[in-house]
Structure formats: structure tokens, C-alpha cells
């Protein structure tokens, strides 16, 4: 144990005595980041030494890095020393009934068709509702356990399945990967863990909605999903409620590992708070997501619908390691108002006869700026590898922009890479045509945009597809006219 850690343990004890347990309201770490704070977080969570050391290693590495600036987005510098890296849910902040929830938020819920019970849960109201959802989760867990599937919070996984976590944590996204991955590795607070054993098809769609309950803790979560040989799992990550926090940094890491013949389907519908009409506030969504198709004929598929955040910056990718493995990326990214999105994917082909498909649909409106950035890399070993990429951009109005940056590296002569790109506009002619038939401008816009996204929505599980369509309509409200 390092001396820093010893000091911190002591410090943690002191802090604990003075604030942590007695009053939930003040359950937070000191502002800013230091080895002490990291060890404090680790101690708070009762983590084993190896994990604390791993965090500290990540932190030390992070300190040697500078924030990247190559992405096609602009934002004022982030004051990393001003962030609180550990904060438990603040009970006082939670409204006691739905009537106290911001009417704008309520209106949004209504438009999304979220039930009252769900609304209560999402707003962090009613303790009953929370208890309800906990018991629901338990029911699911029992059914999952029967099938041998482990699905729990990351913290619980560290406690109950430390060997599994240790074996795979950082195996796809090492903390040296990038600035935000290093930061996340140092300070991540929770997240989810899923392990599907050999030959098991997960009996239900797994989803995480819980992360949006607690406003203060969601910024640095970590997800790890492992599918053993022949296993399959479909995982949904949803944020259907807007966060009202000001310029919150959200730097998550998601790692997927698929062994021989295993399939992982990961779907995201992201609707973090995008900031107000003038571009104030909103979430910086800087996320590292990667899957390792480690086994032969394994398959990893990412589907994302990104409608929220002030800035979205992420490239869910697949490392196609096993021979005949498959990687897919289906994306809809919306940038309305002053939102900026720089998103795409990385497909790294290592194994023979690996295949990847990329379908990216970018929608820009208002002053939104949307960038597709994608890397397709065929290594020397990737005999017979194939990729097909389609990038379509849709512009609504005259002040927005769409940009496409495809990067292609091919090192094997038999590998094939195809890239198609289109840019189109929702034209006045189209809108008038629809309106002449009696369809309102808003409905027409939503219809045209949904038509544009159809290929991607088709990949989403049913309820999610419906939700995504609604979300899109809400995001684009007032985009025209």
C-alpha cells in the first residue's frame, strides 16, 4: 500500500466521521481531483486495493495528458478542479411531489408518453416509486440468476465478482486510451456490469435507466459487458429524461467483450439536457465506448440515437479480433439549437473475413453542427475483410452544418472498403407538398426526418424505436417555420 493511500484512508475516516454518514445531504467529496480524493472515493466504496491502485495509476497517467482539441467542437475550458467527483443523491434537492417538478420537464415527459409512475421515478420523487423500482429490479435479477446471467451495479460486481471485474476491466478501453478514459478510470463512481455465461441467451433485454435518478453521480459511470462463448445479450442504455444541470461533464466508459460465436447488441437512446435556446448549460457527453469481438464469428452491434447533450463526442467502436467476426454501427445524431455533435465509430479489423457495417444519419437544425468521424482500419492480418459505410446528412434550415471525416487505412490487399455519403435538405418543396395534403408543418418535418432515420430505427428494439421517434419529434419541435 502506498503512503498516499494510507494517508487517504485516514482522511477518509475523518471525512466519514464529519460528514458522510450522518447527513446524506453533505455526502460528497471535496471539490477537485487529487490522489487523496481518488483514494477517498475508493475507500468510500469499500474497494479492494488492486482497484484503488488501478484508479491511482489512471490518475497519474491522466495528469500527464492534455485535453484533446482535434474534435470539431468548441467549448470553454473545463475547470477540472472545480468538479465534485463524488456526490451521493441529495435528498433535499428531490421534489416531494410531481407538482414541484419543473413544468417544462413535465411537459417533456408528457410528450414522450412516459407514465406517471415512471415520471415520478425519473424525477426522483416518491420514495415508494423508488422502492417499487428496486423490487422490480430484484424480480428481474432472480429470473436472470436462474439463467446464470449476472446483471448488477458496477459496485456490487466489484464486491461480489471481483475476479471477473479484474479480468476484464480496462481490457478493451485501457486507461491509457485517451484523456477522458483516463479520467473516468480514476474517478468512476458506478455503472453496470453484465456477465452472460457460455451458451446462454439472456432471457430478456437488459436496460439501465437508473443512472439518471441521481443527478450528482451520473457523470462518470462505467459499464462492462462480457458474453462468453455462444452467449447473446441485448442491452439498452436509456436516458429518456432531460437533465437540468448546468454544463455537466459526462465522461463514461463502456467496454464490451464477446467470445466465440457470442453476440452483444448495445442500444443507446441519449437525451441529456442539451442546453437552453441560447446555448447556455447542457451536458458535455464525452464518452468512450468500445467492443472487442474477441472470438471467432462473434458479433458486436452498436445502435445509438443521440438527441441530447450540448456537445456529443463519442465513437463507439469494435475491435474485430476473431476470424469472421462482425461489427455494426447504426447511428442517428441530432444537433438542434446550439448543440454540437462529433460522433462516429472505429472499426478495427484484425481477424480474417471480418465484416463491418456503418450507417450514420446526422440531422442538423437551428445552429447545430454535426460531424461524422469514422475510422475503418484493416490490419495486415485482415485477409478478406470488408466494410461498408453509409453517411447521410440531413439539414433543416440555413444556419446549421454537416461535416464528414472518414478515415480509411487498409493494409491487406484483399480487404474491401466502401464509403457512400449524401447530404440532403428538408426542402420547402417537401414541406409544402405535405401541407397541401393537409399534414401540418410539424408533423411533416417529423415524418420526413423519421423517414430519413428509418434504417437505424429498424435496428432498435421495438419500444425503444417508438421512444426514439417521439424523442426526435420533440427535439425538432420548432425547428422549421
Amino acid at each position: 500500500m502506498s503512503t498516499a493511500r494510507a494517508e487517504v484512508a485516514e482522511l477518509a475516516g475523518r471525512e466519514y466521521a464529519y460528514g458522510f454518514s450522518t447527513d446524506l445531504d453533505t455526502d460528497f467529496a471535496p471539490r477537485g481531483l487529487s490522489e487523496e480524493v481518488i483514494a477517498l472515493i475508493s475507500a468510500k466504496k469499500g474497494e479492494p486495493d488492486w482497484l484503488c491502485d488501478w484508479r491511482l495509476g489512471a490518475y497519474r497517467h491522466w495528469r500527464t495528458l492534455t485535453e484533446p482539441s482535434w474534435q470539431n467542437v468548441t467549448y470553454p475550458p473545463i475547470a477540472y478542479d472545480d468538479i465534485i467527483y463524488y456526490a451521493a443523491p441529495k435528498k433535499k434537492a428531490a421534489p416531494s411531489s410531481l407538482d414541484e417538478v419543473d413544468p417544462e420537464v413535465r411537459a417533456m415527459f408528457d410528450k414522450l408518453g412516459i407514465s406517471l409512475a415512471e415520471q415520478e421515478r425519473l424525477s426522483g420523487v416518491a420514495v415508494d416509486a423508488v422502492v417499487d423500482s428496486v423490487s422490480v429490479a430484484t424480480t428481474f435479477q432472480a429470473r436472470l440468476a436462474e439463467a446464470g446471467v449476472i446483471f448488477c451495479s458496477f459496485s456490487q460486481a466489484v464486491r461480489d465478482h471481483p475476479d471477473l471485474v479484474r479480468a476484464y476491466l480496462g481490457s478493451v478501453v485501457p486507461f491509457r486510451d485517451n484523456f477522458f478514459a483516463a479520467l473516468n478510470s480514476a474517478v468512476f463512481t458506478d455503472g453496470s456490469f453484465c456477465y452472460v455465461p457460455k451458451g446462454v441467451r439472456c432471457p430478456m433485454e437488459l436496460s439501465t435507466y437508473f443512472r439518471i435518478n441521481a443527478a450528482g453521480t451520473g457523470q462518470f459511470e462505467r459499464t462492462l459487458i462480457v458474453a462468453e462463448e455462444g452467449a447473446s445479450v441485448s442491452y439498452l442504455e436509456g436516458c429518456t429524461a432531460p437533465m437540468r444541470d448546468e454544463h455537466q461533464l459526462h465522461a463514461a466508459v463502456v467496454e464490451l467483450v464477446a467470445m466465440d460465436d457470442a453476440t452483444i447488441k448495445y442500444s443507446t437512446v441519449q437525451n441529456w439536457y442539451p442546453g437552453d435556446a441560447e446555448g447556455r448549460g447542457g451536458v458535455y457527453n464525452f464518452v468512450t465506448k468500445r467492443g472487442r469481438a474477441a472470438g471467432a464469428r462473434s458479433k458486436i452491434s452498436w445502435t445509438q440515437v443521440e438527441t441530447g447533450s450540448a456537445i456529443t463526442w463519442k465513437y463507439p467502436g469494435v475491435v474485430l479480433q476473431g476470424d469472421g467476426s462482425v461489427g455494426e454501427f447504426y447511428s442517428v445524431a441530432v444537433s438542434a439549437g446550439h448543440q454540437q455533435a462529433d460522433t462516429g465509430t472505429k472499426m478495427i479489423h484484425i481477424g480474417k473475413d471480418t465484416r463491418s457495417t456503418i450507417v450514420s444519419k446526422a440531422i442538423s437544425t437551428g445552429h447545430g453542427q454535426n460531424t461524422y468521424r469514422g475510422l475503418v482500419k484493416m490490419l495486415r492480418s485482415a485477409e478478406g475483410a470488408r466494410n461498408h459505410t453509409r453517411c447521410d446528412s440531413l439539414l433543416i434550415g440555413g444556419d446549421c452544418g454537416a461535416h464528414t471525416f472518414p478515415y480509411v487505412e487498409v493494409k491487406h490487399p484483399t480487404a474491401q472498403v466502401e464509403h457512400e455519403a449524401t447530404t440532403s435538405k428538408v426542402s420547402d418543396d417537401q414541406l409544402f407538398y405535405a401541407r397541401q395534403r393537409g399534414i401540418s408543418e410539424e408533423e411533416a418535418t417529423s415524418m420526413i426526418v423519421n423517414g430519413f432515420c428509418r434504417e437505424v430505427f429498424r435496428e432498435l428494439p421495438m419500444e425503444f424505436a417508438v421512444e426514439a421517434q417521439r424523442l426526435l419529434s420533440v427535439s425538432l419541435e420548432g425547428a422549421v417555420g
Partner: protein
Amino acid sequence: MLVVDDLHASIGGTEILHGLSLEIGDGEIHAVMGPNGSGKSTLAHVLAGRDPYQVTAGRVLYDGADLLAMTPEERAAAGVFLGFQHPVEIPGVPTMYFLRTALNALRRARHHEELGPVEFLALVDAKRRLVDMDRSLLDRAVNDGFSGGERKRNEILQMLVLEPRLAVLDETDSGLDIDALRVVAAGVRSLRAPHRSAVVITHHRRLLDHLVPDQVHVLAGGRIVRSGGADLAAELEAHGYAGVHEPGAEPHPVSTATAR
């Protein structure tokens, strides 16, 4: 049903219609003919409420109401349909879905119950046979990759499904072969009813031979310069537009007032 009174309309600051007057009674089909640039399409677009066209003077009454004060979708709900000269492509939106959305929007506006998918399918299936349109086209995106003729058939199909009270067909016959022309004419005729009217804008007599309009109007220089019966179309074809309107000459008196 429709009274156009001294209509002046311009686009981009250039006046195209210079005092157009026209009156259409219930159950009537009127043809509007005229050379290129005479303002035929402008008339169609102004009636439907297309944005960049500005009405600078005059009025249009539709069933006694101020048509120009209504939004395009309100006009549609009131029963005005425009058959486009250049139907627009809407990629990704299946024709069937588009048409059902349109019909149900109209039904909502008229406080009728919406049609479910099954009833709608039966309706469309009956109508598409009338215009000899392949079922598979309906599953494709609106006009996406449609041939010229298929687009026009699609316009007529939409008209038949939406059953407008006033149909304005803007050169629906242009670029159609004889068979397609018959189909279009049959479509328009099948809608003929005492409470429905149509304005058929065309360059050619061919369509009118199939339709037999109650009135034929010659539009030139942004005004109706001559009106007459169905035989006027034959005369125009024989002598051309030059015969009915010399530049600088006084236009013929408008005779639509008699056409009730």
C-alpha cells in the same frame, strides 16, 4: 364555389398575375390554357397557398370564405387539392404511410374518426386500380425513383383518396402517353359530382377531349383573355394562342359570369 376577383400576384417582386378573375360553380370543370409564362402555375400555387408567391391585390372566395387567409393545410382541410406539375420526392417515407397520414389529418380537421390501417388499405386498393397503379409503388418512398408517369398517377391516386371538393390540376397531363392520359382523365371524371369542381391547367387539348370541360379559359399575360365552351380548346389548337390575344390588344371581355 370559387370566385377569383381581380387577383394580382407576384414572385420575387415580379408581378405575374395582373388582375385575374374567374368564377367556378359547383360541379363544374374549368380548363385553363395558355402559353408558357402566362401565369398558369402561379394561379395554381396561389390557390394552394405556396409561400414565395405574394398576393398584392384582389381576393379569392372559396364557398364565401377568404381562401387567401388560410394556411395550406387549412385549405386542404377545406377540400382544396393541388395536383403538382412536379411532384416532390420524400425519401424514406412510404407512399402508403404518407397518404394515410394525409387522409387522417384531413379527417381529424373535419372531426371525423381516423381510418385504421386495414380500412385504409381496402380504400387505397380500390382507388389504385382506377389509376392502374402497381401495388409495389405504394410501399416505396413518396415519388422516390418514380417515373414521370408514375408520379402523375400517384397525384391522381392521392386526389381520389382525399376526395377534394376543389381539385386544381397543374399540367398533370404533361409528359404522359395516351394510356396514362386516359387514366388521368378517368380519375378526374370519377370524382365528378354536383358538389365537386375542378380547375384543369393544361397546354394540350388531348386531356380536355377526355374530360369535356364546362368552360375553357385562355390565360395570357397574367389575365384571362378569353373564355368559352369546350370547343375553344379545338380552336386554340388550330390557331394557337396568338389568335386569341395580340400583345397590346384589349383582352376579350371575361364571360365567366354566365357560367354558374
